[in-house]
Each structure stands twice: as structure tokens, then as C-alpha cells.
């Protein structure tokens, strides 16, 4: 566990009545779970309850907040929106988060390079803060390595109210050989800025879920964005070479 995370949960540590505090700390370092926080009767102590409440609120905020308007522009990305009209609809109607209306599709088509080897775009998913937290390091690192390898990279953009399966629409629309969606992960109580990369070879509306190659837990608390980027770039290279992704890519090597 990173010191940062430890520091956050350690504040709620309760040493009263503990005979071997060193031992408790050792166990604490082995798990991100909220152990050793004491109790009053059947209840949490105040500090632990507040910490829990604060982390829960941060997770809620991450899921329900919007990516500020200026963030995509600052990253040099243009923005489009799925069929969802607002966050509430995005949460309650996963199906609408996969599709775009004709106007948005035309916008994507006219703004983007057609038929790139790889189309990379990012989406808020269930974690708005993940975009500003990770994309500035994640995206250029992937792009630079792919370009160096002679792989053409499409025009990046940002999708508001985005679900992973937008890839089934974007891939055929732009005729991209590989699509890589960088999308906010459902937040937990430990991190509220993680994102995942979902990568598919020639995604299409009838593809299986297991055709996605996934890199998850990208954040400064998990796999650091730059290191994840280096790994994602190699994966994309491999997927282009073998012309498959997801489970069949893994099965191939075993």
C-alpha cells in the first residue's frame, strides 16, 4: 500500500488497549482494509466514522460529478456527448451511454483522422476526476511510443457520459483497426481517480465482452499513469501484430 493511502487510513487507527502497536501497524500495512480502528460498543469511533463518511462522499462525488468544461480543451481534445442528457440518465441507462446521435457522429467523423491504426479517446465513465488526474501523463506517453513505432494514432477526443461500449460505435465509424478507450473506473473507498484502458481489435456492435484487453487500476495509487502507458503501448503493438484482442490474445500465448 502506498504511504499516501496508509497515511489517510492511519489517521483513524486506534491504539487504545493494543499491547503490540507495532504488530497492528504491520498488519495495517498489509491491507488497505479499515482494520484496527477500534469501536465504541457496536459503533465506529468518531474519527473512523468521519473518515469512512469522507471517503464515501469522495467516491459519490467522483461518480456523480461532471468533468469541468475546460478540462478536455486544456488537454487539446474536442468533446462529444452520448445519447444521455445528464449524469442521472447516464447512471440509470447504461444503454444510452453507448450511442451517439447523428450530429455527434458527424462531428466525430469530420474532426477525426479516418482509418487510423489506433483510435484513442477518453471518457468520464463513473469517475469524472480520473480524466484530469491521469490523461495528461497517460495519453501523450501512449501516443509518443506508438508514433515512434510507426503506428498511426487517430485524433483524440473526450466523450461525456461515456460507457466502454462506445467502442462498438467508434471503431466502425472511424474504421480504426484498434480502439483504446481510457475511461474512469467505478470509484471505491480507497481511490476516486482511477481509470482503465479497454482495448479491442476491430470492435463492432456484435462483439463479445471478452474481446476487450483491459488494463485497470491506473492512478498514482495503483499502476502509475506513465508506466501503464508504456504497457498499453506495447499491448496495442501486440494486438495490431496478432490481429486479435481480449481472451483470444491471452489464449494464443498459452
Amino acid at each position, binding site marked *: 500500500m*502506498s504511504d499516501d493511502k496508509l497515511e489517510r487510513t492511519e489517521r483513524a487507527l486506534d491504539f487504545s488497549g493494543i499491547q*503490540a502497536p*507495532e*504488530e497492528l501497524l*504491520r498488519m495495517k500495512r498489509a491491507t488497505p482494509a479499515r482494520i484496527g480502528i477500534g469501536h465504541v460498543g457496536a459503533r465506529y469511533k468518531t474519527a473512523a466514522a468521519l473518515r469512512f463518511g469522507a471517503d464515501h462522499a469522495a467516491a459519490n462525488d467522483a461518480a456523480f460529478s461532471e468533468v469541468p468544461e475546460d478540462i478536455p480543451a486544456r488537454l487539446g481534445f474536442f468533446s462529444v456527448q452520448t445519447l444521455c442528457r445528464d449524469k442521472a440518465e447516464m447512471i440509470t441507462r447504461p444503454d444510452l451511454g453507448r450511442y451517439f446521435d447523428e450530429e455527434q457522429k458527424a462531428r466525430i467523423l469530420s474532426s477525426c483522422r479516418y482509418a487510423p491504426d489506433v483510435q484513442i479517446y477518453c471518457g468520464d465513465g463513473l469517475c469524472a476526476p480520473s480524466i484530469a488526474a491521469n490523461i*495528461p*501523463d*497517460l495519453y*501523450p*506517453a501512449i501516443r*509518443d*511510443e506508438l508514433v*515512434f513505432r510507426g503506428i498511426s494514432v487517430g485524433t483524440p477526443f473526450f466523450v461525456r457520459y461515456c460507457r466502454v461500449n462506445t467502442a462498438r460505435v467508434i471503431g466502425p465509424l472511424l474504421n480504426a483497426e484498434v480502439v483504446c478507450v481510457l475511461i474512469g473506473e467505478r470509484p471505491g473507498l480507497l481511490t476516486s481517480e482511477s481509470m*482503465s484502458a479497454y482495448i479491442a481489435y476491430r470492435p463492432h456492435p456484435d462483439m463479445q465482452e471478452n474481446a476487450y484487453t*483491459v*488494463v*485497470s*487500476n491506473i492512478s*498514482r495509487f495503483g*499502476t*502509475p*499513469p*506513465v*508506466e*501503464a*502507458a*508504456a*504497457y498499453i*503501448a*506495447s499491448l496495442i503493438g501486440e494486438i495490431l501484430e496478432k490481429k486479435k484482442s481480449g481472451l483470444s490474445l491471452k489464449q494464443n*500465448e*498459452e
Partner: protein
Amino acid sequence: MKDVLMSAGIDIGTTTTQVIFSRLTIAEKGGFGAAPGYAVTRRDVFYRGRVHFTPLLPDDSIDKEEVARILSEEFESAGLRPDDMDTGAVIITGETLKRANAKEVAESIAALSGRFVVTTAGPHLESVLAGKGSGAAELSTRTGKLVANVDIGGGTSNLCFFDDGAVLDTACLDLGGRGIRIENHKIAQIFPGTKRILEAESIRLSVGDSADLPSVRERIENLADVMARLLAEALLLLPESPTLRKVVTNRLITCDRIPEIVTLSGGVADLLGNLPEDPFRYGDIGAFLGASIARNGAIRERLNRNTKETLRATVIGAGNESLTLSGGTVFYQEIAFPLRDLPVVTLPMDGANPEAYGEAIGRAWERIREDGETTAAFASEGLSAPTYEEICRLADAAAKAARQKDPSGSQTWVFVFATDMGKAFGQAFRRRMPPKTSILAMDSVRCGDEDRIDCGDPIGRGDVIPVVVKTLLFDNGERETI
């Protein structure tokens, strides 16, 4: 992926020569979507060779041919060939290290398999391997207590303190069960370390004394009691006497924490308790030392007798524990694995001052050339979750220095980080170097100045490097050459 590695451990010690073979199971860590990471999850010793006396020639050098014969006998008896091995460690330990032809013997064993790591293990590494092989490291993890292992061999005793599985400190004493050799009921040889103890403690024993005389036997018992006391002193369980300084091989324990549990390994660990009927059965004073240790109150009150391995602790440590795995995201190109004996140079790395990193690489490169080395592993702690800009600026600075020293990109550049940034840095560095430059960048490996590292063939999906970090220095700065 290949998930089981065959490993050999070969230990040529003062008294005994031992061979073990083990299977190391490698498994992928992490769940769905996790970036690759691997760990050794099982270590099964499936073959334990006989315990051979280390063959010596009349001039006290190692009998190389006899060692070769022992090895081929053990391979044959296990139904294996040296080529079946994926990795392995050959270590020459204790007094044997001081034999004139130790280097030559090590090299001849190395020739058996290109995958063997050959090292004339210094006292520090030997202490660590024995402590891990004996199970002391694991015991400290399991109990959360400070565990000290003492591996008592023929010529030396190796101490290692473990705190939660991590090495806290080591020490080595010129004190062992074969400190006096008995032949035909007479004292045949007294090792120099033992001589120093006898002098300091005014115990009169000489070569030729009859071991059957009650007075001589009493002095041997006296000596064994002193040796046990010295071990307790070295373990920080008793106040230090002037004699202790006279038997230090390389260094004493310097940490200020007193072990809560003491474990014993090595041949003498099997001789704790009352003296057997024929105490000179092994031709030395090991049985006396074992009895004295068992009687020593300071050691006894902390002693855990359930050591997993005793006599074979060091060789099992060599076979099982010398290999570590890099992080699962590494970068390499144009590298002819294995890379052997790369000297480690540690360099400070500061994201705010990348130029200093580049300059340090330039200086380090000059220095290793002056030392007659062709390449080195540049090791840094690394940055935790660096920004892409930091990675680019560090790679700029590193590549600038590298291109200045190696304009055509014909050298091998190896970078090691403790934090998770190996692949990111490696790719960024590669993009700034001439094509086809040999580059290896890996992480999750810790090593220090004056260590040397071996890097084996990548395993897993080719994304993890088996690494052996060899700590080969005596504290006086004299390198143990291979």
C-alpha cells in the same frame, strides 16, 4: 508462460559440499486487468544430495576433480543434466573461500551450465542465504518478531537478523564446529580463529594433544563454552568481551535491537543437547559446541528449535532464495541474455533536477571504464508516480549523456529502479538513442553500490527478468573476485 523454474544450489563450504535441486513456481499476481506482475509462490526442494566432505588436496587447495565428480554424481542420481537447470547458484563459503584455487573451482563449475550464477559468497551473502534457507526469515514474517539465525558451519558462524522477513543486519565470526580437527584421538589441526580464542582466554591446547586425556577434554569443553558465549555476545544477548573482536570475520551486528527469537542452522544445529557417546565421530569439536550452546542460558531462553532446515540451510538458501523477479513491466531490446556480473552504480534521481541525473550517468560511465568494466547497471530509487514530463526530461538527460559517451549506440545500457517506472523510462530512453542500442530498463529491484547483478532470460510473457543481486564485498572494500 513457463511457470516452473528448475534451480540448483551448490555449496562448497569449509567442511561439507552439498547439492540440492528445487522447483520454483512462478505465478502471476493481481487480478483482472492488473498490469503484469509475478512472484515466486512456491519453492519445492525435490532433491537433497548427500552431504560430502569438501575434498581437499594435501596442499590444502580444493580438489577440483573430486568436486566435479561429486557434482556429476549428484546430477546423475537426481536424473538431471546441468542443461535442465533454469537457474542456480554456486557458492563457495567459509574457510574454503580462502583456498588458493577457489576462483578456478568456481569457474569450472560455471562451465557446467551457462545459466548458473557463480559467486564466491562473501560472509554477508552467506549469512542472508542461510537465514532464508533455515526458515528464520519466514518465521520473522509469521511472528512479527525480530529473529536472529546463526548458521554454524565448520569454519565460520554466520549471523543474520530478520525483521518482518527483511534483512536487518548480518555478522560473521571465525568460529565453527571444525575449529579444531581431531584425528586418531589427537588434535590434528587448530584453525587460526580458534587459536586466537585460545590465546585470549588462556586455554592451553596444542596440536598433538591426546583428546582422550580428561584434562584435554576438559579444556575442549571449556573452549566450546567460550565459543557459545561469544555467539551470545555477537547476538547482543551478553555484553561484549575483548575476545569477540578477535574472531570477527568481517563485521559485528551494529543494529541496536535485541533478537526475540534465535534459530540455529548448520551442522552444529543438529548436535544440540548432551554429548554423544563418541563426541569425536565427525573428527572435530562440533558436538562439544552444540552441547555448550544448548547449555548457554542467554541463547537457550530465546532458542526456537524448530528450524526448518539445519545442515542444508545455506545450500537451500542458495538454490531457493538467490533469485528475485523484476517488476512485470520492463523494457529491453537488443540484449543478449543472460547479463552477468554487472557492477551496480547507484545514482541519485530527482524529478526536479533531471540534468543532475544525466551528469551522474556521464561520471559513472567514466568511472566504470577506468575500472576496466564495459558496462554497469545504473540503479536509482526512482520516482513514485512520475509525470510524463519528468520521464521525458530524465530520458533527455540520460540519452544526452549516453550519446556523448557512446555516439554510435554500440554499448549496453542498463537501468534499475526500485519504483514502478522501468518500462516508461526504458521506452522514452530508447526513443532518444540510435536504433538497435542495447537497452534494459527494469524496476522493483533494489541493489546498492558494489553489488553485482545477473539478469537471466526473461520469463512470463517475456516481461519479467529473473535477477540475482550479489553482494560480494568484504567490508574492507576488497572485492571478492570471481
